């Protein structure tokens, strides 16, 4: 008798959606729950390097009246020389993920509770899902950027991804 809200990720030009992903690992392959050691991002000490974009959203299902106010943020700071960028529009449209500079993930990620919705439903931050409908939210596009001169090789700091929603 409650909503189930789980993160999902879409990959490939076919926009294949994978529900209830267990992590958001960035790397050199367009797939979900990747193993970074298998798909590392190679870089040298000059230039900027990019992970594949990740299209993340929330899937709403279960038995509920209304779910709204979807929010996300990424607490903790990435390692030196590593930056995480995101889209910030309610209706981020999917495109085949790229490993070059993203045209969508161009904003600094929120690092604390944004206070208002920052994941769209139906193309609007003020949108909602109601009456036990199974709904996929709009996307947040994420991309990791590595600054070659300052980044260090190896695993980066683990980040905490937080999402939040209201149910009524």
């Amino acid at each position, binding site marked *: *008798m*409650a909503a189930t*809200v789980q*993160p999902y990720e879409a990959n490939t030009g076919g926009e294949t959606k994978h529900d209830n992903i*267990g*992590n*958001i690992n960035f790397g050199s392959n367009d797939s979900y729950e990747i193993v970074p050691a298998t798909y590392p991002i190679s870089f040298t000490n000059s230039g900027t390097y990019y992970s594949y974009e990740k299209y993340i959203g929330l899937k709403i299902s279960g038995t*509920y*009246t209304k779910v709204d*106010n979807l929010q996300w943020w990424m*607490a903790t700071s990435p390692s030196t020389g590593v930056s995480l960028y995101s889209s910030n529009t309610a209706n981020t449209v999917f495109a085949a993920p790229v490993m070059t500079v993203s045209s969508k993930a161009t904003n600094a990620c929120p690092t604390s509770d944004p206070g208002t919705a920052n994941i769209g439903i139906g193309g609007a931050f003020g949108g909602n899902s109601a009456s036990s409908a199974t709904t996929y939210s709009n996307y947040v596009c994420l991309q990791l950027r590595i600054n070659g001169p300052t980044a260090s090789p190896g695993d980066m700091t*683990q*980040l*905490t*991804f*937080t*999402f*939040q*929603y*209201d*149910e*009524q």
Partner: protein
Amino acid sequence: MSFHWRITSRTGEIYEGEEDSFPSPEQKISANTFELFLSDDCSIQAPYGQNIIGRSISLSIPDGHCLAFKRRVRVEMCNGIESITHTYIIAFEKVEQ
């Protein structure tokens, strides 16, 4: 973490919510008193800026207002581990005459 609730309407009817269900818009509009019971201690944001930790709360809804009640769910993911916290939010909303 589960909850149930009881609303006594302004005309004396009693409505009770099954576990983890929410009152309907009609029940919230009709509410005179609202009682919330939680299975464990949890954060409750009550009207007028009161934030408490507890398992139950009982409120009277002022004239000209209706009940707003929702659960805010926060999920933190790190290294494949999920941590979930709930906050129950209760407010009074002015009814347009």
